[in-house]
């Protein structure tokens, strides 16, 4: 289909890796604040076709970023979803124009507590307005306006990315034709909120946090690491942890009768926590977990989830994993039921995996088969 490609689009400065745009806004946030301007860091892969009908928006999870299929600038690691996005993958730049933007409130270039408040010339810190999942989606829509994309072929996300994906047709019913929601939920439960609160309290209990004003001094890395450790457990399954670590000791033959990381699982978690602080901002962690806790799509639509989907003609595909206890299958099922009640075309499958919530990021041939078939059906 080379003849349908507008030659200008291939050299357009709006398209490519490591892009950042400052949009004037204002963006009216759910909390009532008008945010202006709005910075959005993003990447695009592939070529937008002449009628701009092949755009696929990828929504990232809590600590994810726009580097969905490109090397992360700080960690040097490959993109976080190269199993789903790339050549020969279900989302393929050869066919799709892939857009992935850093969410509002995050710390990889989009407006958030770590960016500069133009009014003060200093980091927003805790002065940044509290945001919601829907605010993230509205910011993404502003980016699509900037990119010249009116309607998405699909919006795809796992975990918090799935919350955004689900919010898309609810917020912009006419701007999305297909919606893929993986290992996600339509609302945060008390247990979800509880785990997040543990993480937030760990950050705020770190003396380096200083009410969020740590940007000129040491960051609250100890607190943020503990937050990440607690959260990380929720992304795995007990069976997965047992298989990977069991009760094995870390580089020693006997227990130390002290409080070193005797067990491999302790050492692993400490490493995960510490590595996380190299790439993530503590205040962003507070803001984004808050946005997730506030998420209740039914509440935004008169208490009935089906109402969220009555105006859209989008097709839906939901996938859950049987060992995911963070967003268990029952959450996906209740979304499916609401979609059915709204008359929306919906597919759903619970896949089997030993890896818990994180399964959606790992090699899962069945997941790829489902997403590929679903996306091709609407193309």
């Amino acid at each position, binding site marked *: 289909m080379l003849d349908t490609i507008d030659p200008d689009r291939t050299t357009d400065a709006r398209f490519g890796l490591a892009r950042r745009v400052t949009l004037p806004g204002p963006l009216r946030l759910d909390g009532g604040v008008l945010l202006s301007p709005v910075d959005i860091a993003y990447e695009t892969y592939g070529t937008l076709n002449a009628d701009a009908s092949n755009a696929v928006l990828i929504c990232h999870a809590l600590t994810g970023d726009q580097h969905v299929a490109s090397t992360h600038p700080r960690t040097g690691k490959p993109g976080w979803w190269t199993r789903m996005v790339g050549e020969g993958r279900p989302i393929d730049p050869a066919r799709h124009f892939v857009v992935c933007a850093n969410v509002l409130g995050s710390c990889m270039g989009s407006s958030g507590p770590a960016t500069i408040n133009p009014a003060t010339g200093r980091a927003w810190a805790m002065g940044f307005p509290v945001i919601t999942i829907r605010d993230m989606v509205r910011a993404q829509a502003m980016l699509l306006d900037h990119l010249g994309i009116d309607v998405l072929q699909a919006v795809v996300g796992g975990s918090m990315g799935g919350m955004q994906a689900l919010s898309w047709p609810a917020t912009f019913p006419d701007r999305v034709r297909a919606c893929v929601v993986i290992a996600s939920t339509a609302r945060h439960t008390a247990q979800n909120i509880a785990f997040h609160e543990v993480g937030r309290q760990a950050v705020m209990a770190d003396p380096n946090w200083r009410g969020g004003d740590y940007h000129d001094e040491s960051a609250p890395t100890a607190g943020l690491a503990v937050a990440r450790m607690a959260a990380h457990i929720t992304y795995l399954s007990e069976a997965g942890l047992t298989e990977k670590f069991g009760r094995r000791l870390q580089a020693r033959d006997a227990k130390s009768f002290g409080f070193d990381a005797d067990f491999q699982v302790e050492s692993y978690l400490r490493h995960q926590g510490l590595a996380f602080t190299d790439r993530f901002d503590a205040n962003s962690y507070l803001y984004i977990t808050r946005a997730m806790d506030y998420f209740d799509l039914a509440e935004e639509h008169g208490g009935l989830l089906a109402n969220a989907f009555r105006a859209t003609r989008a097709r839906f595909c939901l996938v859950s994993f049987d060992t995911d206890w963070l967003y268990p299958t029952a959450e996906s099922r209740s979304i499916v039921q609401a979609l*059915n009640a709204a008359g929306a*075309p*919906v*597919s*759903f*499958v619970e896949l089997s995996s030993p890896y818990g919530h994180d399964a959606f990021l790992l090699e899962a041939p069945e997941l790829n*088969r489902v997403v590929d*078939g*679903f996306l091709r059906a609407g193309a």
Partner: protein
Amino acid sequence: MSTTTPQETLRADLGIIAHHVARGSRVLDVGCGDGALMAALRDERGVDARGLEIDPGNVAAAVGRGLSVIQGDADVDLQGYPDASFDYAILSQTLQTARAPDLVLDHLLRIGRRAFVSFPNFAHWRVRLSLLWGGRMPVTRQLPESWYDTPNIHHVTIDDFRAFLRQRGVIVEGAWFLSGDKQTTSAAANLLAEHAVFLLRGEPGA
């Protein structure tokens, strides 16, 4: 099957169902397997087909064909579907595997304005011979599993099903009886048919 050329690759009972579903209608296929019937209905008859299937591998295969299929259990998940939300609800080769086939049938007639039900006939002469002469649970072409691993937990005969429909006041709008790929007469069906397909309607005039 000579009258159903577009569905030649379909199993015989599915071919009959596909041939009698009205064009452009809305269909729910309960126990849709890998979506073979749904795909045929969509491609040949412009049907808006939705599926319910218990096996995740089958769901993945069906979604891979671009079909809208939900993984679920007919015994549990039919109650979430609104009344009369489909023109047809189809239950092919699934009735005898349900824990509560009577309730599944109630849901079918509630959700669909009409229902297709197909099942293997447990009174087929081969089955009878197997029990009469062999004294063993039959293992036949239609019932290939042994007693301990069969998913068919509610074996039913054509006459059982007819009596059941009469008892419940369900209207039979059509019935087809298959021996292999060939149709047999209604009168001898309970003995000669391996398979039955019924087109049903709930209330008179509905």
